């Protein structure tokens, strides 16, 4: 299949207009010794054949639509309303570019403006950008932003060990060569109060996550006190959140957070084996000029009609170049559209319902599993949709049996990331898991543990 429309005759005509004999003549500047290499690639396939090949590959996977999955840990299987695909599949959205020519990109721009608005509503913050790549890079950008807020004069960052391990890894990669020290997460027992005790005037920010990686929802009262302690030393509080949990719980904007970020995949985006995801990012209006990423702003045209444009672009790489707050160019616009449609479809009551169902079903599952011999639920209440269970056998072995014998994908093996949590699994129950499936899971656990 060729997507180029030229006929041989047209190619000839065009070559004549250019004044060359053949296309190869146009590559005269390419060093002769290296020109026109032979590429070892498999021969082309027709549509039927390529789809057959991909279907075959897809069939080798165990996927959540055919198995029941209790795996979370940063990527989630939530129900996506049908309306989302109907809208996101419109090629006027997906085959558009970044809205630099605002007059003919009002679709993309208004979508971004509405997305920003809904992220603000969800997080309780004043401004939000139009997206980062994922939760991990959003976290890295938040630390860099906190550093810039402190005008580069503070070199310490306090990081809770309960922030997703991969987010902390990404932050470390981004901070190489900057002289900023990330501290606090080496000790898994470091809790909020202990971290607060380590604050000083050389700290630019303190980063926490709620629900934590292990599923615990942090007490808003404790967070308020933490915010006070952080502000008392002139630092900023950064909070990473699960957006679905904000359907139910007090948002970080109401407890004094300065920057709020998180993984937006759960908002209507499929798990897609880890990407493309959605880093959402919000902050106080006072800091907006230090925030990286695109921003859609409201304005009017020459006739006074309301319209939207990319604004504060002078922060960005294409103008500020080496002085830009970040190098981010391409973002996750289509995933942000997806999240916007999801949030609008569920709306005020629907998102609350989703969060409630997750909460109730997860607590039901924990209660039932807690009754099983050999299994112990380790999560202190309160948790949201994930909790930790100590198992009577190694999690890898448990999960293999669950898969083979019951077509169930088990939870996250915590021994990989938390050595002190040997034989512990992190289980996730969302509104997409039917109660009967929970019961089946509990029975399956009992069977495979025998």
């Amino acid at each position, binding site marked *: 299949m060729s997507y180029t429309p030229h006929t041989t005759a047209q190619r000839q005509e065009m070559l004549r207009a250019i004044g060359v004999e053949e296309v190869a003549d146009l590559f005269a500047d390419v060093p002769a010794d290296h020109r026109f290499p032979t590429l070892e690639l498999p021969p082309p396939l027709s549509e039927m054949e390529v789809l057959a090949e991909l279907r075959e590959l897809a069939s080798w996977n165990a996927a959540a639509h055919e198995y029941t999955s209790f795996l979370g840990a940063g990527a989630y299987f939530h129900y996506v309303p049908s309306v989302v695909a109907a809208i996101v599949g419109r090629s006027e959205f997906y085959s558009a570019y970044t809205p630099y020519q605002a007059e003919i990109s009002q679709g993309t721009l208004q979508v971004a403006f509405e997305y920003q608005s809904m992220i603000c509503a969800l997080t309780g913050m004043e401004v939000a950008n139009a997206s980062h790549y994922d939760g991990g890079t959003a976290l890295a950008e938040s630390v860099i932003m906190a550093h810039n807020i402190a005008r580069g004069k503070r070199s310490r960052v306090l990081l809770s060990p309960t922030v997703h391990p991969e987010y902390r890894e990404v932050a470390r990669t981004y901070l190489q060569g900057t002289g900023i020290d990330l501290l606090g997460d080496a000790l898994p027992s470091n809790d909020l109060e202990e971290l607060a005790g380590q604050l000083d005037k050389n700290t630019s920010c303190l980063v926490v996550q709620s629900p934590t990686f292990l599923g615990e929802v942090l007490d808003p009262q404790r967070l308020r006190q933490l915010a006070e302690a952080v502000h008392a030393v002139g630092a900023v509080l950064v909070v990473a959140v699960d957006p679905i949990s904000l359907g139910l719980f007090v948002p970080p904007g109401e407890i004094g957070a300065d920057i709020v970020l998180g993984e937006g995949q759960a908002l209507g985006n499929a798990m897609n084996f880890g990407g493309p995801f959605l880093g959402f990012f919000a902050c106080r209006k006072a800091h907006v*000029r230090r925030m990286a990423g695109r921003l859609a702003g409201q304005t009017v045209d020459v006739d006074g009609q309301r319209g939207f444009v990319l604004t504060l*672009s*002078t*922060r960005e790489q294409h*103008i*500020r170049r080496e*002085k830009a707050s970040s190098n981010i160019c391409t973002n996750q616009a289509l995933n942000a559209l997806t999240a916007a449609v999801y949030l609008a479809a569920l709306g005020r009551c629907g998102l609350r319902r989703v969060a409630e169902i997750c909460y109730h079903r997860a607590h039901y599952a924990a209660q039932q599993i807690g009754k099983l011999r050999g299994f112990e639920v380790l999560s202190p209440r309160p948790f949201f949709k994930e909790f930790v269970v100590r198992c009577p056998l190694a999690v890898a072995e448990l999960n293999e049996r669950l898969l083979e014998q019951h077509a169930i994908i088990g939870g996250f093996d915590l021994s990989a990331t938390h050595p002190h949590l040997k034989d512990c699994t992190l289980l996730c129950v969302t509104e997409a898991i039917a109660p009967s499936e929970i019961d089946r899971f509990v029975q399956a656990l009992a069977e495979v543990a025998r």
Partner: protein
Amino acid sequence: MAQNSENMRYAKSHEWARLEGETIVVGISDYAQESLGDIVYVELPEVDEEYDQGEAFGVVESVKATSDIYAPVGGTVLEVNEALGDDPAVVNQDPYGEGWIVRFQMHDPTQYEGLLDEAAYDEHVQEEKAKGGH
């Protein structure tokens, strides 16, 4: 058009400095404001902060560019023009008067003498324009 004044000097980076006793008042030149276009925001330093000659002490932002502003002479910030918070456009309208940005206490007044006088600055601007500046 440059300010016609005995006590005015300019930096190559397009800041002006007006001598007032031991202090200098600093802003950006007419050429600078015109190049930037409509100014939408000025980031001001804090009073009592210290800057070396040539160090960036603030930022001027328009829709098409964001420019650092550099201390023409090393000094301590005595005063900042808070009015620019509400109306940054005054930098475009009156760059040498109401559009002043910061007042510095100079650490080394001899640095002021080393700055460009009006004639030398005008020549510098002509050179930049010839090179293809806006």
